[in-house]
C-alpha cells in the first residue's frame, strides 16, 4: 500500500486535487470572468509554467535558479519574432524606407533582415525554437555549472547575472531586438487575428491545456525514479553520488525541463498579451517568479499554480487601488513566506487544514479511516532540515 501510493502516477486524493484545479481553470474562471479579466488570468497562468519548473528545480531538486525569466523571455521572443515577421509584410510596412522588415529595425537604420531572423519566417521552426532555444541555453549553463559541482547560492547568483546580461543585451541591441519597448504590435498568427476577444478566449483554453500537459509531465517526473533521486540529491547529494548516480546529469535534465516549461509559458504570454519585452526577462521578474512558487508551496506543483494566480491577482488589485502598498506588500510576502510558511499555501493546506477536516470527519463516526495520503507536496521534509543545508553547499 505504502509503496503503491508512492509510485502510482496519481493517488485518489491527488486526482481530486487535479480535478479541482481543472474545474477552476476550465469552468469557474471562464464562466465567472469577462473577456478582459479572463485574458488577464491567462497571462497569470503563463507564469505558472515557470513556477511549475521552479517547483521541480528548486523544491524537489534544491537548484534555485534566479534566471527563469531568461527562458521565459527566449520562448516569448521566439514566438514574437515569428508574429512580428508576419505582421511586417511589404504592404503593411510600405511607408518605411525599407519595406518588409520589422518597424523597429527600420527606425534603427537597418536595411536588411539579419540572418538569424530569417528562419523565424517559418511557424514550424518558431514553435520548435520556443522549446529548443531555452533548453539549449539551459543545457549549456547546466553542463558548465553542474559538472563542476557549482550549486546553491553560487548557481543562484550566476543565473541572476545571466538574466542581467541578457536584459542589457536586448536593450542595447535595439535594432535587432526592439530594445526596451520589446517586440510590439503583433497582429496575426497564420492569418488568424489574435487580438479579438474570441481569439483571446481560444488562446486561454490552449494555454490551459498546455499548462495541464506540463503539470502531468511534472507529476510524472516526480513519481518516477528521477523524482525520488532529485529529492535524495537535495537532501544528501554526496550519498547519491557515492551510490553511483551521475548527479550532474539529473540536475541538467531537470533544469532543462524547467527551461522548456518556461519557454512554452513565454510563447503563450506573447500570444495572449501581444508583445514581448525585456521587462519580463530581467532580474526582477525572474525573482518574482520564484515568489510565485514559494507562496504556492515550493514542494507542490498544484500549489505553484494557485500561488501564481493569487500573487498576481493581489498584485493587479492592489496596484490598481494602492500602488504604494504593493511593493511593501510584496516585500512583506517574501519575508513572511520564508520565515513563517516555508511550504507555502500547499503546506498550510496539508499541515493545518487537512488534519482539522479529517478530525471533523473522524468525529462523525467513520473512525477506521486509514491515514490519507499526504498532499502531493509532502513527500519531502521542511526546508530547515538537512535539505536546505545540502542545497546550500
Amino acid at each position, binding site marked *: 500500500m505504502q509503496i503503491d501510493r508512492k509510485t502510482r502516477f496519481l493517488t485518489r486524493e491527488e486526482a481530486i486535487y487535479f480535478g479541482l484545479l481543472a474545474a477552476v481553470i476550465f469552468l469557474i474562471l471562464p464562466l465567472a470572468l469577462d473577456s478582459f479579466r479572463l485574458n488577464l488570468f491567462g497571462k497569470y497562468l503563463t507564469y505558472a509554467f515557470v513556477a511549475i519548473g521552479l517547483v521541480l528545480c528548486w523544491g524537489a531538486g534544491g537548484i534555485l535558479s534566479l534566471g527563469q525569466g531568461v527562458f521565459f523571455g527566449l520562448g516569448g521572443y521566439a514566438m514574437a519574432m515569428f508574429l512580428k515577421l508576419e505582421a511586417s509584410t511589404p504592404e503593411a510596412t510600405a511607408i518605411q524606407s525599407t519595406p518588409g522588415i520589422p518597424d523597429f529595425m527600420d527606425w534603427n537604420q537597418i536595411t536588411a533582415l539579419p540572418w538569424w531572423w530569417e528562419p523565424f519566417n517559418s511557424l514550424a521552426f518558431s514553435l520548435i525554437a520556443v522549446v529548443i532555444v531555452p533548453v539549449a541555453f539551459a543545457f549549456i549553463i547546466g553542463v558548465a555549472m553542474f559538472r563542476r559541482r557549482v550549486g*546553491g547560492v553560487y548557481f543562484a547568483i550566476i543565473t541572476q547575472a545571466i538574466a542581467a546580461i541578457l536584459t542589457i543585451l536586448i536593450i542595447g541591441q535595439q535594432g535587432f531586438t526592439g530594445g526596451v519597448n520589446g517586440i510590439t504590435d503583433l497582429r496575426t498568427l497564420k492569418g488568424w487575428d489574435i487580438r479579438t476577444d474570441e481569439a483571446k478566449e481560444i488562446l486561454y483554453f490552449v494555454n490551459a491545456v498546455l499548462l495541464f500537459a506540463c503539470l502531468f509531465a511534472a507529476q510524472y517526473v516526480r513519481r518516477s525514479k528521477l523524482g525520488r533521486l532529485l529529492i535524495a540529491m537535495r537532501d544528501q547529494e554526496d550519498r547519491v553520488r557515492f551510490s553511483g548516480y551521475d548527479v550532474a546529469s539529473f540536475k541538467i535534465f531537470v533544469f532543462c525541463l524547467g527551461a522548456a516549461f518556461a519557454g512554452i509559458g513565454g510563447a503563450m504570454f506573447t500570444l495572449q498579451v501581444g508583445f514581448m519585452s525585456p521587462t519580463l526577462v530581467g532580474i526582477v521578474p525572474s525573482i518574482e517568479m520564484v*515568489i510565485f512558487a514559494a507562496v504556492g508551496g515550493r514542494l507542490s506543483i498544484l500549489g505553484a499554480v494557485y500561488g501564481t494566480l493569487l500573487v498576481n491577482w493581489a498584485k493587479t488589485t492592489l496596484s490598481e487601488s494602492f500602488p504604494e502598498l504593493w511593493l511593501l506588500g510584496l516585500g512583506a510576502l517574501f519575508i513572511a513566506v520564508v520565515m513563517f510558511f516555508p511550504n507555502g499555501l500547499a503546506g498550510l493546506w496539508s499541515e493545518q487544514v487537512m488534519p482539522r477536516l479529517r478530525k471533523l470527519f473522524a468525529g462523525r463516526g467513520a473512525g477506521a479511516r486509514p491515514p490519507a495520503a499526504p498532499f502531493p507536496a509532502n513527500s519531502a521534509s521542511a526546508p530547515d532540515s538537512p535539505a536546505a543545508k545540502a542545497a546550500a553547499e
Partner: protein
Amino acid sequence: MFAGYSAGELTAIFAMQGFAGLILFSVFVLMALGLAIIFGQMGVINMAHGEFMILGAYVTYLVSHAFADYMPALFSFYFFVAMALAFLASGALGMLVEWGLIRHLYRRPLDTLLATWGLSLILQQIYRSVFGAREVGVTIPDWMMGSLPLTDMIEVPINGLFVMALALGISVAIYLLMFRSRWGQQVRAINQNRVMAGAVGINTERTDRLTFGIGCGIAGVAGSAFTMIGSTGPTSGQLYIVDTFLVVVFGGAGSILGTIASAFTISQAQSVLEFFLSGSMAKVITLLVVVGILMLRPQGLFALKLRK
C-alpha cells in the same frame, strides 16, 4: 578599432579611461568590501546590500542640507560627518535586520536570499515615500570640484581622487580589523568552524551581529561616497547588486584580497571597453567574460583553501 588615433592620443585615452576605471574600481571596492564580509565571511546572501548603501547616500543628502541650513561655515567638511553618520545608520539598521531576520535563517542561505530581497523591496518603497521617486543629488563642497591637469591631454577629477583615497583607507581599515583585531580573529574562527568557535568561548551570536552591522555600515559609507559621483534614487541600489555579487564571487568568496583584485579587473575591463564600444556592450562583454571564467573556475580568482 584603433584606426584614426595617433599614438599620443591613444596613450591619453588609455590613461583617462584607466583613471575612470580606477574611480569605478574604488566604487566597486567600497561596495564589495561590505559584501565580502557579509557573504564571504558569514555566508549570508544580502540582496538588500544596495539598499543599505542607498541609506548611506540619503543620510549624506540629509546631512548636507542640515549643514547648508544651520552651519554654512563648516559646509566644506560636512562630508566627514555625513560619512560617520552613514556608517552608524546603516550599521544600526544592519544589526536590527540581523536580529529580526537573518539570524533565524543562517541554515537556509537560499531563503535568506529571498527574505533579503523582500527587505530590499520594502526599503525601496520606504525611500520612495520619504524622499520621493526622483533622484536627489548633494552639493559637493568647492574644494572637491574641478580637476587636476597632469599633462595637457590628461586631467583627473578631484572628487574621483577623493573616492579613491577613501576606498584605499577603508580597505586598509578592513584589513587591520580582519587580521589584526580580536574581532577579526573571532570572525575568521567562526567562518572556519562555528561549533568549535562557540566551544572555545566565542560569543558567536554577538560576533555575527557585529559582523553584519559592520558590513552594512561599510555599505553605508560606500553610498555616502557614491553621492560624490552620481545622484541617488530609491532604486539605485538594485542597479549595482548584481555587479557587486559578481565582484565578490569572482574574487573568491572569503578572500578580501581577491575581492579587491576582481574589482580592479572588472572595472578596468569595463571602463576601457566602454570607450570603444557602447556602454551596454562593454558591460555585456565584461559580465559574460566574468560568468564564463566563473563557469571554468567556480571558486573564483583567489580561493581560500578550506576543507568543507
